[in-house]
């Protein structure tokens, strides 16, 4: 276990690796480094040597239905990236690993749980002056078996959230305060990406997702995170928690924090999030 990670006191410190660890495993055949960014061109202008790119839109979304790719396409994607079920995947990306945790969460739907996040993400790697390349690696194609997809443990649907609400289960809205309060809805020319109503799901605590990271992009310590999520937002270990945002990407970051760093066993990400809830007829809203 790496000391730099261990001393932050996480329940599952194995979920994180340092940039130094990654630098020492660039050519490890059992490790595949995966970059997933919001800024889709970053990989093209430079990435960690031997890292492959996962595009959250083009690789992970179903092109027609609002859902993720199916098991057959997941297996195909893994085969193309030279990944086997035993490969250790290390995710990293821009924006405090926001999209890295989103990709990781989607991978978990397919049971690929040998996953890590590079603490500090792309920005830390760059700021340390580590090697970057534009060379796209090529790995021998693998025959990844078609997995079973299990959404029930870590994904919440609207009806699950309705049930959760009736039981007064804890919810975390990880959007900005302006979105939470209902002041911000969407861009005028893109109504399809917004919602007809603003506000938040009743009872949800507002903890903007990026509060979980320090200025250098690394995750805050366990004590600091507990102060935010338990001290301020009122969560308790053992809670059944649902996190949401606009389309479920920012909340995957909070999902990662609660599940791995703080050790909450029952955390689900509601990826329908506000673009579904804020458009749903008679869905209760609080402002």
């Amino acid at each position, binding site marked *: 276990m790496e000391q730099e990670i261990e001393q932050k006191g996480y329940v599952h410190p194995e979920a994180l690796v340092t940039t130094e660890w990654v630098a020492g495993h660039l050519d490890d055949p059992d490790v595949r480094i995966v970059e997933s960014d*919001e*800024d*889709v*061109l*970053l990989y*093209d*202008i430079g990435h960690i040597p031997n890292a492959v790119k996962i*595009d959250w*839109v*083009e690789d992970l979304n179903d092109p027609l239905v609002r859902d993720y790719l199916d098991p057959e396409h997941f297996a195909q994607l893994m085969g193309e990236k030279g990944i086997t079920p035993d490969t250790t995947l290390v995710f990293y990306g821009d924006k405090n690993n926001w999209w890295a945790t989103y990709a990781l969460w989607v991978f978990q739907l397919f049971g690929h749980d040998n996953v890590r996040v590079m603490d500090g993400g792309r920005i830390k790697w760059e700021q340390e002056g580590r090697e970057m390349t534009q060379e*796209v690696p090529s790995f021998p194609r693998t025959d990844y078996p078609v997995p079973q997809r299990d959404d029930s443990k870590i994904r919440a649907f609207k009806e699950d959230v309705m049930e959760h609400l009736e039981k007064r289960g804890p919810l975390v809205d990880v*959007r*900005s305060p302006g*979105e939470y309060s209902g002041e*911000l809805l969407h*861009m*005028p*020319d*893109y109504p399809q*990406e917004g919602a007809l109503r603003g506000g938040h799901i009743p009872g949800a605590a507002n903890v903007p997702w990026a509060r979980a990271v320090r200025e250098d992009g690394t995750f805050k310590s366990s004590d600091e995170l507990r102060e935010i999520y338990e001290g301020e937002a009122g969560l308790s270990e053992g809670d059944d928690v649902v996190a949401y945002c*606009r389309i479920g990407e*920012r909340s995957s970051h909070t999902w990662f924090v609660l599940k791995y760093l703080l050790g909450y066993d029952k955390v689900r990400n509601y990826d329908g999030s506000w673009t579904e809830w804020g458009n749903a007829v008679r869905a209760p809203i609080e402002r």
Partner: protein
Amino acid sequence: MPPARQAQIAALVEHYQNPRHWSVLEDADVTMPGGSPECGGSVVVYLKAGEEGRIDALSFTGEGDIISQAATSIILEQVLNEGLAMDEVLALDYETFVDRVGREAVGSRTRNATLGLSTLKSAVRKYQKDNLHASSAAEPARSCG
């Protein structure tokens, strides 16, 4: 990487690193924010109107991904270099603009590529709405499905 895509990315990165008309326009008639810093990117477009529906000056500030910021720089440069009037800006086609930015590089991120253009159109609409007597342009049709 295919050469066309490589060239498009290089052009976008050049605009991203050296954005044209990147400043706050102190005497702007309209200051129009667009997008979200939380998602893709955000820009603020500043518009100074001229006479008879013309545009005297444009500028923008913003933060976000390469595509959204570079494409905003590209559209402002185009409008000012070509001397487009407000109605001509409103008539600009989003798909044509994505072609100009580079469809291979933009891929599925067409929203990011058109953030600047849509915000600029919003600025023009706001100016025309606030100055109805000075414009013969009708409010564009909106889909209310």
